[in-house]
């Protein structure tokens, strides 16, 4: 049992993948290295997928690509409304990134979302965007006044929400990925073959995608809330 705890701890610790030998050596954590790999993959995929796009599509590739992009546009427009269209590319990026990060565990790579720094970074960027959204649509005065709404007595709760929202976003994602990982490790101990397959379907694929969806869904909901 002690062995398992050690193994789990080892898996959860974010090791340094390599060090860039400048300024006395910049350590690059494993999660960042994997993120770079995901970025490179997405860049190559984007360039390959968007080659020879035609006004009248002839290939299935373009139709599928347009379907996905239109689906994302419609999904976020449905939540944010017409005013929130400018935020759609960022939210789509986050969705694609988290989905890739959660699914990369299938390739035997440690998912970047298992690193608290990544989920916290994503959550902090989300809260910055949420508050920027509020300031952009209401103006600084309106944004400050909105803390006293619907009644002044809940102002402290509204201020606390600035910290609660990113914390919940960050911890939900991190907790789910961590929990899924621990459960999968335990299942592998019980039966290393066959049994992990259906569970992996759920924890690695379904849960991974659901968490990506939940993260951007909540971010866009909070954005809509702060815009109103």
């Amino acid at each position, binding site marked *: 049992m002690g062995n398992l705890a050690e193994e789990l701890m080892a898996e959860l610790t974010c090791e340094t993948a390599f060090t860039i030998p400048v300024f006395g050596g910049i350590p690059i954590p494993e999660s960042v290295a994997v993120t770079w790999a995901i970025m490179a993959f997405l860049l190559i995929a984007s360039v390959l997928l968007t080659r020879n796009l*035609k006004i009248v599509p002839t290939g299935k590739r373009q139709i599928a690509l347009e379907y996905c992009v239109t689906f994302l546009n419609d999904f976020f427009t449905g939540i944010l409304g017409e005013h929130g269209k400018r935020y759609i590319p960022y939210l789509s990026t986050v969705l694609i990134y988290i989905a890739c990060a959660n699914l990369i565990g299938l390739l035997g790579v440690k998912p970047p979302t298992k690193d*608290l720094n990544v989920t916290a970074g994503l959550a902090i960027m989300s809260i910055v965007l949420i508050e920027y959204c509020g300031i952009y649509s209401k103006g600084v005065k309106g944004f400050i006044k909105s803390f006293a709404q619907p009644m002044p007595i809940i102002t402290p709760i509204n201020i606390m929400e600035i910290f609660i929202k990113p914390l919940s976003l960050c911890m939900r994602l991190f907790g789910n990925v961590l929990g899924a990982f621990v459960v999968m490790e335990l299942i592998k101990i019980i039966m290393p073959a066959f049994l992990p397959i259906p569970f992996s379907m759920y924890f690695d694929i379904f849960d991974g995608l659901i968490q990506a969806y939940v993260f951007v869904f909540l971010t866009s909901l909070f954005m809509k809330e702060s815009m109103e």
Partner: protein
Amino acid sequence: MLTLSLDIIWTFVNLIVLFLILKKFLFAPVQKVINEREALINGQMAEAKAKEEEANEKLLAAKRTVDEAAEEAKRKAQYILDMAAEKEKQYIKAAKDESAKILEESRIKAQQDKEKLLADTREEMISIALMAAKKAVGSSIDSKKEQALFDDLVKKVGEA
């Protein structure tokens, strides 16, 4: 495990870079094509609508022309009928006039013939009567007496 470090900055940088990459290489080109297609479709729709309106206008104009032509034809037919009726009347009148004229002429001619015949007959009768009287009286009668007898005969014939 649950510790935050300065590595969080990597997340910010990575996410922003990934956002820029996807925006430039994925969302922008796809959106551009979608927008271009939308513009093309809107243009074609507008063009089709304009053509439909034009066609409707032409159809209306054609209908108007057909209506006008039908009206014109009707008018012309009526004119021809009227003209025919007028001509018929004229011909009938002319025929009637002609026949009346012929009738009158024949009546006059008949009258003249009758009168002529009467006169001829009268003269014939006179000459016969004269010849008979000459025979009865003989040649002794003088011309004075002959004249008196003739006048007497004429008077009698006239009375007859």
